[in-house]
């Protein structure tokens, strides 16, 4: 469980997050949605500790992030898997080395055990036979899959995905969404997905928080999002033709 209480963040006097309160639950795909520039990436970066909030609290379980010592934070980070928007695979390493990377640092497993675990993770995301390829030899979809494999390598409790299907075709996007959803349920992870892709929202959004101009304007799930009374959310949702047709009953 991740709890966010009254979170504020500003840059050069401009408030980007204004008093966000939200809880992210385990075993669910918790989605942060909103238009570009709404503050969802800033919220995600605050959640994972890449940015420090001006005020407010973020708690992992019963521990507040602001009260954690550096060692405790490092320990927490080992329980976090992250899929970055551009996959962020290491250029200097092959596919299998990328997945083994966190294991090398944080486990005492032998090389054979690390390789076995990496291959298991790669099979989970359906990347087979590409162990020795470098990231630049893979397609965007494959890179995302390897990114997910690396993120789950240490069996994390928390999984964060920043726009997991940006730059992907609709078919690959849905495969990646389903993969994230299946892994979330299988490993009972607290997954937080940052997206503005309506297909993803309707496909895997177990819990959805809509952010607009730095404020959390609406919370619900994929079953209730189309019945929302929130005007800004309706405008956001209706930007998608399919959703607009559903809402308008066409």
């Amino acid at each position, binding site marked *: 469980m991740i709890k966010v209480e009254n979170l504020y963040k500003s840059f050069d006097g401009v408030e980007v997050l204004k008093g966000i309160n939200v809880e992210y639950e385990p075993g669910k795909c918790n989605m942060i949605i909103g238009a570009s520039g709404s503050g969802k990436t800033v919220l995600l970066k605050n959640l*994972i500790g890449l940015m420090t909030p001006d005020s407010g609290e973020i708690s992992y379980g019963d521990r507040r992030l602001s009260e954690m010592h550096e060692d405790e934070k490092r320990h927490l*980070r080992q329980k976090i898997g992250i899929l970055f928007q*551009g996959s962020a*695979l*290491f*250029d200097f390493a092959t596919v299998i080395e990328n997945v083994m990377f*966190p294991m090398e*640092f944080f486990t005492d497993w032998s090389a054979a055990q690390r390789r076995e675990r990496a291959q298991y993770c790669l099979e989970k995301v359906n990347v087979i036979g590409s162990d020795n390829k470098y990231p630049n030899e893979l397609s965007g979809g494959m890179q995302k899959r390897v990114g997910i494999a690396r993120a789950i390598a240490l069996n994390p409790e928390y999984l964060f995905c920043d726009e997991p299907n940006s730059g992907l075709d609709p078919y690959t996007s849905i495969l990646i969404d389903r993969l994230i959803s299946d892994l979330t349920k299988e490993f009972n992870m607290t997954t937080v997905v940052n997206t503005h892709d309506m297909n993803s929202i309707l496909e895997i959004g177990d819990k959805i928080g809509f952010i607009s101009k730095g404020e959390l304007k609406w919370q619900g799930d994929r079953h209730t999002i189309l019945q929302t009374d929130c005007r800004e959310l309706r405008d956001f949702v209706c930007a998608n033709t399919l959703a607009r047709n559903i809402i308008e009953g066409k």
Partner: protein
Amino acid sequence: MIRKFFESIGRYILFLKQVFRKPEKWKIFWRQFINESDKLILSSILLVGVISVFIGGVLVIQTASNLENPIIDKMYIGYMVRESLILEFCSTMVALILAGKMGSNIASEIGSMRITEQIDAMDMMGVNSAGFLVLPKIVASTLLSPLLMLLSLALGLVGGWIVVEATQIIPSASYITGIKAFYNGFYIFYSCFKMSLFCFMISSIAAFNGYYARGGSLGVGRSSTQAIVTVSILILLMDLVVTQLMLY
């Protein structure tokens, strides 16, 4: 501007503090050290070697053309070439060349990792990204660069000898006698020390610029250029300071 300057110095010190934290695993550090030694030092041998041979040859010709007085023994040409190579060329000039090669390599490599979120990914795993990426580069370049200096000296002297043999500008025996005359071992130490110091500056400042690169590929280019300019000026400045402290 002054505030920005002091901010940069502060950030550089904090960056070094992060770099010099104890490595998470020594095994990984040594593996990286070997890789970086190969990438930064071994790959520079050809460049340094070629330049040193030519500079050694040019120094012989220039010195000979300025020492035409028959009273002065020709062996002094060899002696002066050796001293020029040891005292200035093999450390300072080679370091300036390496600032371009090594500096841009380090700044652009780390800068592109920064803008593609690879460094963020490492940090989020709980890996000390600065330690993992930068410490092996600094250690490899600082410890092994004196070998480049010695190699440069040897090849510079060989270059001078080739020119002497090819042009008979002075008798070969005089040149050999000259390069062996009035040998002062401290000068070798002084030159090795300078080289180590300069290479520490090259690797750490270039890494610092790359590590804090912002603004896409243009930002990477900017950080790389800024690293080379800063390092080149600092090398010349430190050359002056170290020379005053150690030789006078």
